[in-house]
């Protein structure tokens, strides 16, 4: 069903505001980018630069109000999701575009077991699966949860932060989407698990041709998995290019500064480098 010609996802001049009148914030300000089939695009950027808002806008998940989709279009498989009906959108969500949210602590329903929450995704999108429980166990196992069978009955609050995050990942993957939007999926994970997850994503990508939109601050991961990098700064996209290119030859001063800030293991600095915003504004 994927169109051979166009990209899987094409965002054109998207603008999202919060509030109205004099208290308005332009969280996302006229951005355009695209993700092709099977491509992994990393989005990096300053905290609060609009990455999550962009991600959520893809299937119009932000509550309106307070959010307003002021302009632009989001073409997924050629269809503008901003114009779809809620019902049609529902068919896109999960099945076509699945999410891993940034804050698993609030994104999991506190009153349902993790089994239920993952199973729901499986049942919704993969009716062919007969043994849902086994599928859930498999999903949990894949994301590196020990003794998954025993963890099925746990409620979110009983899990550690990293485990919650992995449950989110398992849930998103259980949907087997076309496009996975992963909003800082590994922040709470230790590096071994992080690696395991990245390997897993790569595997799935290879197997199913899934595209990934990966929001992260971790340049190591970007280097590891991303095909392309999009850099956001204050609601705008300031740089967009192939990973190697961007990492090695960043064009925008912000990108450059950002890469400079990455702390390196074993590097003996007394202070970590931070960005001097005035400097960037001056040079941009």
């Amino acid at each position: 069903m994927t169109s051979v010609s166009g990209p899987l996802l094409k965002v054109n001049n998207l603008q999202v505001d919060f509030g109205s009148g004099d208290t308005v914030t332009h969280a996302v300000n006229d951005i355009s980018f695209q993700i092709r089939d099977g491509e992994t695009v990393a989005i990096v950027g300053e905290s609060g630069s609009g990455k999550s808002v962009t991600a959520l806008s893809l299937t119009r998940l932000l509550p309106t109000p307070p959010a307003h989709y002021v302009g632009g279009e989001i073409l997924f498989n050629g269809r503008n999701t901003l114009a779809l009906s809620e019902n049609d959108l529902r068919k896109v969500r999960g099945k076509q575009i699945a999410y891993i949210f940034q804050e698993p602590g609030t994104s999991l329903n506190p009153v349902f077991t993790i089994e239920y929450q993952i199973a729901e995704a499986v049942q919704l999108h993969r009716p062919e699966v007969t043994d849902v429980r086994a599928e859930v166990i498999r999903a949990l196992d894949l994301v590196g949860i020990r003794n998954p069978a025993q963890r099925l009955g746990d409620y979110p609050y009983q899990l550690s932060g990293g485990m919650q995050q992995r449950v989110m990942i398992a849930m998103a993957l259980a949907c087997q989407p076309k496009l996975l939007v992963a909003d800082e999926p590994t922040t709470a994970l230790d590096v071994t698990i992080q690696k395991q997850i990245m390997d897993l994503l790569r595997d799935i990508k290879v197997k199913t041709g899934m595209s990934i939109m990966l929001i992260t601050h971790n340049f190591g991961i970007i280097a590891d998995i991303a095909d392309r990098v999009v850099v956001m700064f204050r609601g705008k996209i300031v740089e967009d290019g192939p990973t190697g290119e961007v990492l090695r030859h960043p064009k925008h001063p912000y990108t450059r500064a950002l890469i400079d800030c990455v702390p390196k293991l074993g590097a003996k600095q007394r202070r970590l480098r931070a960005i001097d915003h005035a400097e960037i504004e001056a040079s941009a």
Partner: protein
Amino acid sequence: MKTYILRRLLLMIPMLLGVSLLVFVLVYISPGNYLDVLKAQRDIPAEFIAKKERELGLDRPWYMQYVSWLGRTVRGDFGESWSYRIPVIELLAQRAPATLALSLTSLVFAWAIAVPLGVFAAVYRNSIFDKLSALSAYAALSIPEFFLALLAVIFASQWGGFPTGGLSAIDHDYLSPVGQLWDYVHHLILPTIVLGIGGAAGLMRVMRTNMLDVIQSDYVMTARAKGVPGNVIMFRHVLRNAINPLVTSLGFAFSGLLSGAVLVENVMNYPGLGQLIFQAFMRKDRDVVMAAVIIGSSMLIIGNLIADILLAWVDPRIRYDK
């Protein structure tokens, strides 16, 4: 949890003792006693009243009366109704099924309309539907129950279709079993509506508010992102998080299952326990009152316990044993 339940059940004993003692004293100090009605009749001689007083033990100090009442009750004998002259248990058992049926149906009715209406009102916030349902809820709350009952009676008598009251039709005994069942149901409908509507109105508005509180949570967004259909989100993901106060109030409702609704029962001539117990209260038919209180309190305690268990079940973050 098991120990928690056990502890709660054990606590029932001092609770019931306390309640019974308190109510006993209240009955005692509230002016008048069972013989008031006799005293107010002009052709009853004073000696007969004195004799009755001795017979019923009303001439003894209250603590003596309480001790003997307690002694009997502990042995499982709830005593005898003074005005009916039959064991209290028999008397209550006679009326209990009707009351239970009415309470249950009205409870189910109230919940069955309150929850969906509340949910839809929250989902379609500020829509015409929301406003209409709010208006009807306020109206239902502003109309006293007895008025609603009266309206139902007028409705039934003017338009037919429903009986004007009672538990069964006159020819009930001559109906087929299915006919008899339908007859009971037919007589239940109006009282159920009358009783249920007031409760439903409050529940519905509370439901709506709580839904509004929960509807914006991140996990609702998660569910939406998963592609869960709207109704499932509302009725499963949100409802479960919003239902807490309703569950607590279910505990109270449980305790009311057997006490009935005096006003509605009176107006609609529904022969239930509410009527009986109220009459016993007014007549100061002490053992009936005490039995009703003991049963009511037990139901309340158990209802609350069930509500607490359910509360922990719908919201796993709630823990009692620290």
